[in-house]
């Protein structure tokens, strides 16, 4: 087949949101016929207005949300087929959450180690070695014994990244890794991501960090109202996007960035 | 096994017992709410002595079994006062006092979740502290507290079965009497248990419906604490 690390084919996902009263139920079509291919070493960046369904799509890729329709492939293996061991599949996919979601009862080291011990079943010493190596990669060796509540947001998110890369996954999915952080803390996370990019890590990132996108992304994907509106290299979006919606969005976001 | 169910006499007993069980529970919950509210206001606004006394009161009624409190009410209190006292009256009182110890915690918890903001808001429109308590804080606190109130109702009802062992005729007493005549131990307790179950579950369901109607959107008590 293809040399794709991951592929989404015609994925659909809707979900219901309860309103104030019991009767008000809104159906939101977060993902409508989205297809995407990621090859080894690719760095792709999804961006678009908030609430457009980007995060839902990313969660579908990791099968943390199960798509209503369509297929997700990890290498040659279909994840949407019946009887797939999703846990094994997820062990090969790193995921970084917007709100970090560290395990609150474990130290930084414990957070990174858990999957190595319980999912990869590595012996204790090797798991520890690899966990420490992952924490070194995100430059957090001094936080090893700290609990999530004792770290800054930037440190916590770097632990989140270490947790995702420690088991050497085929691909890392990052869901707005910097948007929940205070502006002065995003830098350290971006630096970490840049290092990963230079090492050739395959990544699919949902983010609005435009300078970062320009620097590392091979392809940018403009996503709005549940589907992909436009795809292209950063130069396209920063100079002259084809669609009006992308144009508007880029103007807004670039104005904002320069004002700051 | 269940032939005795056709005897109307037993049903009169069951009905008589259930009446006492229901009366004592309802009275206990209501007296408990009234006293519990006073205790929580005292605990929030009172001085050191008042707070200390309230803490001792609560610790006594929450720290020891209601069963032993019933014995104290029925045996110890009349002995201390050298008075012949009505066991029913004493039982009513001890249930109310006990429930107040628990309900103080619920009401105070509910009041504290809304107290600061709502008190400031009340005073800002010119109401006094007491007016704000009466018209703003307590009405809200009572709505928040309904689920805890339901729990209190369940556990008080269950505790009334202890009254059978100080000679009062509640539903469990009715069971003991019927069992004493029919010797159908297992069936009798199954029927008595089922009656308790239907009554308690039914009332809880009703309370849940009331809560759903009355609850203030967005304000809920963290039942953990």
């Amino acid at each position, binding site marked *: 087949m293809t040399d794709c690390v991951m592929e989404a084919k015609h994925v659909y996902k809707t979900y219901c949101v309860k309103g104030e009263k019991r009767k008000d139920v809104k159906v939101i079509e977060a993902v409508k016929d989205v297809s995407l291919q990621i090859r080894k070493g690719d760095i792709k960046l999804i961006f678009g207005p908030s609430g457009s369904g980007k995060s839902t799509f990313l969660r579908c890729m*990791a099968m*943390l949300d199960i798509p209503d329709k369509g297929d997700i492939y990890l290498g040659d293996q279909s994840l949407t087929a019946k009887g797939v061991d*999703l*846990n*094994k599949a*997820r062990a*090969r996919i790193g*995921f970084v*959450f917007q709100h970090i*979601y*560290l*395990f*609150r*009862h474990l130290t930084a080291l414990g957070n990174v180690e*858990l*999957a190595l011990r*319980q*999912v990869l079943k590595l012996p204790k010493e090797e798991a520890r070695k690899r966990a420490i190596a992952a924490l070194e990669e995100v430059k957090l060796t001094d936080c090893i014994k700290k*609990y*999530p*509540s004792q770290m800054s947001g930037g440190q916590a998110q770097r632990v989140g990244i270490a*947790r*995702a890369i420690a*088991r050497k996954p085929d691909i890392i999915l990052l869901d707005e890794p910097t948007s929940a952080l205070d502006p002065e803390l995003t830098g350290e996370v971006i630096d970490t991501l840049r290092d990963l990019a230079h090492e050739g890590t395959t990544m699919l990132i949902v983010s609005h960090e435009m300078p970062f996108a320009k620097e590392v992304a091979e392809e940018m994907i403009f996503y709005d109202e549940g589907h992909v509106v436009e795809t292209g290299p950063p130069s396209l979006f920063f100079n002259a996007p084809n669609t009006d919606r992308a144009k508007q969005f880029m103007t807004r976001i670039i104005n904002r960035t320069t004002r700051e | 096994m269940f032939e005795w169910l056709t005897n109307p006499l037993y049903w009169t007993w069951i009905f008589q017992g259930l009446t006492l069980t229901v009366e004592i529970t309802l009275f206990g919950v209501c007296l408990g709410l009234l006293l519990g509210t006073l205790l929580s206001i005292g605990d929030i606004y009172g001085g050191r002595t008042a707070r200390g006394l309230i803490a001792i009161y609560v*610790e*006594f009624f*929450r*720290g*020891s*079994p209601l*069963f*032993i*409190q019933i*014995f*104290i009410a029925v*045996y*110890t209190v*009349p*002995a201390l006062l050298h008075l012949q006292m009505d066991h029913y009256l004493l039982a009513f009182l001890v249930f109310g006092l006990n429930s107040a110890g628990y309900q103080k915690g619920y009401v105070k918890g509910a009041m504290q979740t809304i107290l600061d903001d709502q008190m400031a808001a009340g005073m800002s429109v010119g109401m006094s502290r007491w007016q704000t308590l009466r018209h703003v804080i307590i009405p809200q606190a009572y709505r928040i507290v309904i689920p805890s109130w339901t729990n209190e109702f369940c556990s008080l009802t*269950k*505790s009334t*079965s*202890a009254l*059978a*062992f100080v000679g009062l005729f509640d539903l*469990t007493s009715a*069971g003991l009497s019927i069992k004493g005549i029919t010797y159908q*131990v*297992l069936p009798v*307790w*199954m029927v*008595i248990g089922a009656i*308790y*179950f239907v009554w*308690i*579950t039914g009332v*809880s369901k009703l309370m849940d419906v009331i809560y759903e109607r009355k609850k203030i959107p967005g304000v809920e008590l963290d*039942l*953990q*604490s």
Partner: protein
Amino acid sequence: MDVWQQLFNLLEGVPLTLSISIISFLVGIALGLPLAFTRIYEKEISFAVDLYEKIFRGIPEIVLMLLFFFGLGTFFPLPFGSAFFVACFVLGLRSGANQSQIYRGAIRGVGDEQMIAGQSIGLSKWRSIWHIMVPQVFTFSTPGLGSEYALLIKDSAYVYVLSGLLEITTRANQIRQSTGDFITPYIFGALIYIAITFPIAYSLDRWGNRRKKKIGL
């Protein structure tokens, strides 16, 4: 029997009160934890858990003890003929129902995102529950668990209705019957209960708060 003899007699009942409440508490944990997770994460069978909880919320412990001991005990002397077994059985099942409720609240408090994070690193549902949820759920439930244990100590007084279990309340009644003293045995009894329940609730509360602060719940 002078006052001090009464007190010592009552104190001899403390080990029995404690053992009934500890065993029931452990039974309650063993039942309550899986039930709470089942109720939340296995929607198809959650109605059974609901029914179980309702039964123990809706039937007095005394009636259940009488039912199992005098009712079933005649047909199955093993194990229901043993008052100690029936006491732990009824209180343990009751505590399981209560604890299931406590843990359920805690699971909601810990939050679904922790489960999702667990699955994102490849842990299965029940392994995420075990490695990630359970440790946090315990911490989160401490004030509730403290009062639940205190409740078991108090409710162990109900075993007075069975025969042959000489715990605190049963002893207080025996003393009243043999001495005609209506005052001291009950007052002492109540004070002993308070002396047991107070430090337990207090220390569990403190431990829980410390631990909560540490992990930022």
